[in-house]
Each structure stands twice: as structure tokens, then as C-alpha cells.
């Protein structure tokens, strides 16, 4: 049994199944929903299989079609990739369950093929070890995501999607330019090969600037976040969830990988710049979220703030690499679960009440206790209160910041949590008013409420899983050797 599991090329399945599934959904719209649900569930199983494989054999390598690097394509998965794949599979399954109840027929037939395409691209992205391949997966993911954002065809959705597309293409081209320069300089697109060969030279610096700028734009780091709130807020709820939870994490993952292997060792002050931008993003995003009167925009701006947190790890990683990256990864994982839950819960409220004006949400929140609980639990993680994955991430980050005496960052981390509490409770307070009972505009299916609740519960559960998760991420030591903390 064990040997069979370790023999199956799980990594290939993770890419092929959703890709073929997406086309099948397009060809046979009738079975789209059921096929989508089955395939996302198989995705969860495949990640478990891949995890088993990695834990028994170490880092996963697969030369596609028997053609390895430099000519062919290598699939590669270490602990970090595995975790990203796992969170994608889990959040993806939650989103699928939710979507099966959410979409009307007319939108459903368009949603499933695109969603499976995004999933295939995400999986391929996390399994790639080659900067050009990463470009291709980024583009496939980005184009499908844009189409999803425009799904409802409303004015807001279309303009949001257009803005998103332009930002996306600009980011990709900038990235591709950087790839061209790196290839010119070192004759390879394989990350491992590049890591060995790369040296500080004008070409490398230009590549760094182009790739960094492109990815930062795609990750929506302040001040390049302008496209995110309109796109995420005007998309249908499950789409907002997958954009905020997974798609922005993908470009962050690439940035992290390239930093760890190629650009980080070069030195330079870019880490500091990222740290400063991250800090501003935390404050700006949180303040904007506090100001919003519409729930979806509030949640979208909260994403801008939470992305800022991820970038705080860069300046801290200079002397305490492993711990700072652990913190960033933990924050990314928790945010993926919590933010997906939050957007799904928001979708429930919007559907039930027919609007998302925060001030008038009290009647809605009180009729949907499960959804309110989901929002609350997700909020706990976003605020970084214990027990939750967000708390663990924040604790690790604070620990590194304090150990290095980075007081500015310490203040930002704490302040960001306080502001988050402000905007989360702005919504939760609505659960405790003397509201008159209202009659819903549309009932919310149980699957939608439970999908949100279980994802939120996952974010809380992550608060108790730090030890196994952090030991998983260490497989293949993506963050280099463990330095001893003073």
C-alpha cells in the first residue's frame, strides 16, 4: 500500500486533473458542478498522497515526460510547496462546496471551468522550479482569475476586472523582462541552477528590479494595491475568496522563492524597502478598512493590510532567516483560511439581506448565526488573537522583531492588530443589537454556511498545529540551515 502511494506521480495529477477537468466542464456544462466538486476533493487526496511521498522519500522531483532541466520541465516540491499546495487544496475544496450552492445555472457553467483552470495553474505554480514556467502559470492563473472576477457582468465587476487585468499584464510583462535578463546573464531558467550561478551584476540588479516590481504589483503591496479592492469587492463571493486567499499568495510565493534562492543572498536594501512598504500597507489597509461602509470593501482592504504583514518578514530575515520566514508562511496560511472564510461569510450575508451596508447588517447577522460565527472566528485569526493561526504567526514575527530590536516593526505589528480588531468588531457588533426580525431576500443553503464556518474553524485550529506545520515546512530546508537564535 505504502509503496503504491509513493509511486504515483501525485504532482502531475495535481496539475493534469483540474486542467482536463476544466476543459471537460467547458464541454459538458451539465456535469460541471459535480465534476468540479469531485476533482477538488481528489485534489485534497492528491496533496495527502504527495505529502506521504515527500515525508517518506524527501523532496519531490519529477521530470515531466522524462525531459529534465535544462531542456525539459522539472516539477519540484519541498515542505514549503507542499504547504502551499495543501492550503490551496483545502481552501479550494471549501470554495467548491460553497460554489455548488452559490451559483445559478447561468453563471455556474462559466464558473467551474475557469475555477478549475485557476486551480491547475496554482498547483503548477507551486510545483514549478523554473522561472519561465512560473511566468506561464502566473499568466494562466491571472487570465482565468480576471475572467472569474468579471463573471457577473455588472458594471462594477467589469471595471474591476479590467483594472485587475491591466495590472496583471503589466506585472507579468515586467516579470518576463526580468526573466529574459536572468537568462541572458546566466543561461538558465532553473531556479536551482541560477541559485548557484547568480552574481551581483548590473543585469542581475535590473532583473531584480523588474521581477520584484512585477510581483509586488501582482501581490498588491502598497502602493501598488490600487487594483485589488475594486476587483475583490465586486467579484462574486467565492471568487473574492479565492482571489484574496490564494491568488495573491501565489505571486507572494514566487517572490519568496526567488528571494530565498536567488536575490536574497545578493544583499542590498530591497528587504528594507519591502519592510517599509509592508508597514505602510498594514497601517493604510487597516485604516481604509475601518473607513469603509460596505462589508466587501472592508474585507478587501483588510487583505491589503494583511499582505503588508507578509512583507515585514523581509527585513527581519536578514539575520534570522528561518524564524522570520516561518512567521511569514504561517501568516500566509492563516490568512488564506481566515480570509476565504470571511469572504464566504460576507457572501452569505449579501445573499440573505440583499446588501452589504455594514450599518444595516444587524438584522442579517442575527438571522445567520453560523455565518456570524464564521466571520467571528476568521476575525479572531485576522486580529491575531489566540488561539488561532494568525496569533502564532504574529507571535513568531514579534519574537524576531523584538530579538533584533526592530522597534518600528514591533509597533507596526501591534498597531495592525489593534486596528484589525477595530474593523472586525465594527461588523461583529452588529450581531448584538435589538434588531427587528427581517424576512430574507433569499435563503442561504446550509452548505454555504458550513463551508464558511469550517474554513474559519481551520484558521483557529492552525493555532494548535504550529509544531507539525513548522516541521513540515522545514523539509528540504527551503529557508536554508537553521540559525541559532541568540
Amino acid at each position, binding site marked *: 500500500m505504502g509503496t503504491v502511494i509513493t509511486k504515483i506521480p501525485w504532482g502531475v495529477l495535481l496539475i493534469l486533473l483540474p486542467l482536463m477537468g476544466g476543459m471537460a466542464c467547458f464541454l459538458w456544462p451539465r456535469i460541471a458542478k459535480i465534476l468540479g466538486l469531485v476533482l477538488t476533493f481528489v485534489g485534497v487526496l492528491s496533496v495527502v498522497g504527495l505529502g506521504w511521498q515527500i515525508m517518506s522519500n524527501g523532496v519531490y522531483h519529477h521530470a515531466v515526460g522524462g525531459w529534465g532541466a535544462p531542456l525539459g520541465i522539472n516539477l519540484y516540491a519541498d515542505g514549503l510547496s507542499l504547504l502551499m499546495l495543501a492550503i490551496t487544496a483545502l481552501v479550494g475544496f471549501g470554495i467548491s462546496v460553497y460554489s455548488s450552492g452559490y451559483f445559478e445555472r447561468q453563471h455556474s457553467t462559466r464558473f467551474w471551468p475557469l475555477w478549475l483552470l485557476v486551480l491547475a495553474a496554482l498547483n503548477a505554480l507551486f510545483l514549478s522550479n523554473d522561472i519561465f514556467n512560473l511566468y506561464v502559470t502566473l499568466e494562466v492563473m491571472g487570465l482565468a482569475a480576471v475572467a472569474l472576477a468579471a463573471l457577473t457582468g455588472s458594471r462594477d465587476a467589469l471595471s474591476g476586472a479590467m483594472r485587475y487585468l491591466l495590472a496583471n499584464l503589466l506585472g507579468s510583462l515586467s516579470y518576463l523582462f526580468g526573466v529574459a535578463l536572468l537568462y541572458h546573464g546566466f543561461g538558465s531558467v532553473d531556479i536551482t541552477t541560477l541559485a548557484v550561478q547568480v552574481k551581483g551584476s548590473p543585469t542581475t540588479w535590473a532583473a531584480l528590479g523588474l521581477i520584484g516590481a512585477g510581483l509586488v504589483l501582482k501581490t498588491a503591496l502598497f502602493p501598488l494595491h490600487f487594483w485589488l479592492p475594486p476587483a475583490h469587492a465586486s467579484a462574486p463571493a467565492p471568487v473574492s475568496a479565492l482571489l484574496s486567499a490564494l491568488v495573491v499568495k501565489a505571486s507572494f510565493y514566487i517572490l519568496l522563492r526567488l528571494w530565498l534562492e536567488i536575490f536574497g543572498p545578493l544583499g542590498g536594501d530591497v528587504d528594507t524597502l519591502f519592510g517599509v512598504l509592508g508597514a505602510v500597507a498594514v497601517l493604510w489597509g487597516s485604516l481604509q478598512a475601518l473607513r469603509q461602509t460596505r462589508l466587501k470593501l472592508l474585507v478587501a482592504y483588510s487583505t491589503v493590510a494583511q499582505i503588508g504583514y507578509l512583507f515585514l518578514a523581509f527585513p527581519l530575515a536578514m539575520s534570522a532567516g528561518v524564524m522570520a520566514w516561518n512567521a511569514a508562511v504561517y501568516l500566509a496560511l492563516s490568512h488564506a483560511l481566515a480570509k476565504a472564510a470571511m469572504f464566504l461569510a460576507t457572501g452569505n450575508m449579501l445573499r440573505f439581506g440583499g446588501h452589504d451596508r455594514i450599518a444595516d447588517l444587524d438584522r442579517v447577522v442575527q438571522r445567520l448565526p453560523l455565518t456570524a460565527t464564521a466571520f467571528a472566528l476568521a476575525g479572531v485569526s485576522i486580529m491575531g488573537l489566540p488561539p488561532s493561526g494568525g496569533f502564532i504567526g504574529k507571535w513568531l514575527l514579534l519574537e524576531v522583531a523584538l530579538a533584533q530590536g526592530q522597534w518600528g516593526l*514591533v509597533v507596526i505589528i*501591534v498597531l495592525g492588530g489593534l486596528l484589525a480588531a477595530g474593523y472586525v*468588531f465594527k461588523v461583529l457588533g452588529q450581531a448584538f443589537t435589538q434588531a427587528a426580525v427581517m424576512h430574507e431576500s433569499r435563503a442561504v443553503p446550509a452548505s454555504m454556511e458550513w463551508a464558511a464556518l469550517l474554513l474559519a474553524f481551520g484558521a483557529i485550529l492552525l493555532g494548535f498545529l*504550529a509544531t507539525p506545520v513548522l516541521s513540515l515546512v522545514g523539509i528540504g530546508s527551503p529557508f536554508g540551515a537553521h540559525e541559532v537564535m541568540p
Partner: protein
Amino acid sequence: MNWNAWIPLLVVASSLLPGLVIFSLAEERVRLRSTLNLAGALVKLALVGWMLWGVYHGRHYETRLALLPDLELVLRAGPLSLLFVTLSSVLWLVTTVYAIGYLEGSPHRSRFFGFFSLCVSATVGVALSGNLISFLLFYELLTLSTYPLIVHRGTEVARRAGHSYLVYTIFGGALLLLGTVWLYTLTGTLEFTPQGFLNSLGEEHHPALIVIFALMIAGLGVKAALVPLHGWLPQAMVAPAPVSALLHAVAVVKAGVFGIVRVVYEVFGVSFAAELGVTGPLAWLAATTIIYGSLRALFQDDLKRRLAFCTVSQLSYIVLGVAIAGPIATIGGVVHLVHQGLMKIALFFCAGNLAETLGIHKVSEMNGVGRRMPWTMAAFTIGAFGMMGAPPIAGFISKWYLGLGALEAGQEWVILVLAGSSLLNAAYFLPILHRAWFQEPPETWPEERKFGRKETAWALLLPPVITALMALGAGMLASAPFSPLGWAQLIAQREFYQP
């Protein structure tokens, strides 16, 4: 299988699990809900009794769960934890009975009792925490689970009170988190140890330690209602009476004070804290709070507000006892943790009864109420005299040990504070008693409800009477084994005389 390792966890779970089930119950399942609540409370009490017996005979109860690679979630039953756990489990049982009676027929009861149980689970967790990170975890959980109780009624006033509670406590929690992480980066451990674990840190860390102490005291002081961080407490009065009882006696403020006790005794260690020079300012802060709270209480006409400021003042007796940093004062402070709880909960139950039965909310409406509700007012009287420090009620014991401890530590000024505060206590409680017993009752009460020949419902009457009797008993039987005083002596001994 070592069962002793799971008992602390079971103590927490005994209210957590019923709480989670209660959330899912329909509003009209009154009997099932009450059964679950009471069963949870009784199981918890039995488990705590078991641990008391065990610890007395030298057994260890400790649960450890991995939380972070080098940090564990530790629940441990030591003498100090057991003192607080016992207090909150006993009072929880009483409060549950009271709440069932008090909220009969009102809306959102499943929500209320769900959060009520969560709140107690968090408190028990706070009490049993064996290190700072576990403490922090339950401390924040307590904040989150109390908020819905404070805003339970959903009125504009309640929501404002809840908002102010959140602003204070979330901010306090952030400071505590900061202090805790900082401490961890210096020491690499957060385990509560008798006489502290910071002695070994070199001189160069002392300034940082002073700042950490200040951060932690500020973070805990929010819940402990130290002036000027007490603002949320009088506002939170709008909550239903059982919640006030919970806030003032069982859970929230106690968690803050208990945290201060932990930080001073088992993180810094009393002697090391005195060496750092941080206990002096803490004592002054406590003294200020005592006097300020009493003065403000004098001028409140709203009965519950008056009691709230009384809490602000009384809580700082405990802090003062800790800050004097001597063995006898420690006994006084720690034992007041229990005594204040017993007396204050009785007072709040009485205030709730007056409001619920007669519609009385203000001191000025209390004329002759003793004749209409003799049992309630008898319990109130015991509580009030206890607060003033009249023998043989429990409050006297605390003040006696605090005074003796101050003399022993050579801090005579504390006696002045104690005497002044007792006078003020008398000044705001005696007029109430005078009105209640010696003034003519009015023709009609503001909003009277009839309960046959009884003065009020059983579920409302028994809790105040029982808790008042306990306060009386704790004072009269102070020298008996297992009395609060006995435990406090055990705790002080461990802090001061163990090698």
C-alpha cells in the same frame, strides 16, 4: 495512561463542551439547557474538589500540549491556581442558578448561556495556566467571550459599554502580548516558577525588565481596573445582573488581579521585583485606586454603579497586598481574592433582585426595602459590612492581614490608606442600609412583580443568601483547614520560605 495529566484539561472542558452544545440549542429547550449548565458546573466542582484533595496530599496535575516548537500550552494545578479555580467554580454554580432564574423568558438565552460557559472556561484556563503564553491565550479568550455578555441586551447603552470594554481590553491584551514576547526573547522560557525565573538575568537587562513589568501591569491592570484603566468597569454595569456578578467576582476583574499576582510572584519573584524597585510604584498605584474608587462610589446614586466603583477600590487591596512584598501582606492580598469575590457577588445578586423584583435601580429608591425583601437585604447587609471590614465577616480577615503585613514591612502609610478606605466604605454603604431598614417604604414600588408569599423567586433568593453565608463562614471559620485563609498561608509560605 496517566489520568492526572488530563484532569486540568477536563476542568476547562467541563464548561467548554456544554457551552458549545448550548449554542446549538433552540431557544425553547429550557430544561435541557439548564441541565447541561448545572451538570457542567457540578462536574467541574467535583473535578476541582478531587484536585484540591490531591494537591493537599502532594500530587501533581499537569496537562501539556504543544503550541509552538519551544512553547507548550500548560495547565497546572498548584495552590495558587486552585484557590482561584475553586472560587470561580463555586461561584459559577451559584451564578448559573441565579442566571437561570434571572433570565427566565428573555430572548437569546442560548447565546447568553453559551458565552457564559465559554467565559467560565476561559477563567478556569487563566487560573490553571502554567506559563505566560497559556495565560495570555485564555486571557484573550476571556475578553472575547465576555463582550457578547456585556452587549447582551443590545441597547445603545449596552453597545457603547461593550465598545468601551473592547477598546480597553484589546489594548491591554496587546500590551501584555508585547511584554510577554519581549520577556521570552530575553529568557527563552515563560514557565511560572515560585519566586520567579528572572534572577539569573544580568544587570544590563534590568531597564528592559522594568519596562516589561510596566507593560504587563498595564495590560493586566485594564481588567484589574487599576486607575486610570478602570473606565470600562462602571460602564459595563448595563449588562444583566448575572453578568455583573461574573465580571466583578468570578471572572474578568479577578483574571486581571490574578495575573498581577502571577507576574509579581511567579515571573519576577517578589524579592527580585522589590530589588528592581517596581513594587513601590505598584503599591502607590493600588493605594490611589483604593481611595479614588471609594470616593467615586460615594457620589453614585445608581446602585450598581456604586457597587462597581466599590469593586475598583476593593480589587486594589489585592494588588496592594502583593505590592507590599511581605509574607503577611501576601496572605492578606491573596485571601482577599476569594473574600472580595464572595462578598461582591452577594451584593450584585441583591442589586439584581431589587431591580428584577421591585424595579429599583437607584439608592434613593431603596427606602424601606428591607421590610419588603428581608432575606435579600440581610444578605446585602452581610456583604456591605464585610466590605467595610467589620468582624467576623471575611473582609475583616483580609484587612487585618494587610494591615499587619504593612507594619511588618515597615510601610505604615498603608494603614492610613486602609483606615481611610474603610471609613469611605462605611460612608457609602451605611446610608444604603439605613434607608433599607429604617426608612418607611413607599406606597408602590417602581415596577413590582409578585412571587406569591415569597419575596422573590427561589432561584434569585438562594444565591445571594448562600454567598453571603459563605462570606460569613470564610471569616468565622478562617482557622479551619481548607479555609481560604489556610490556602493563602500555604501560598505565601511557598513564595517566601521555600529554598
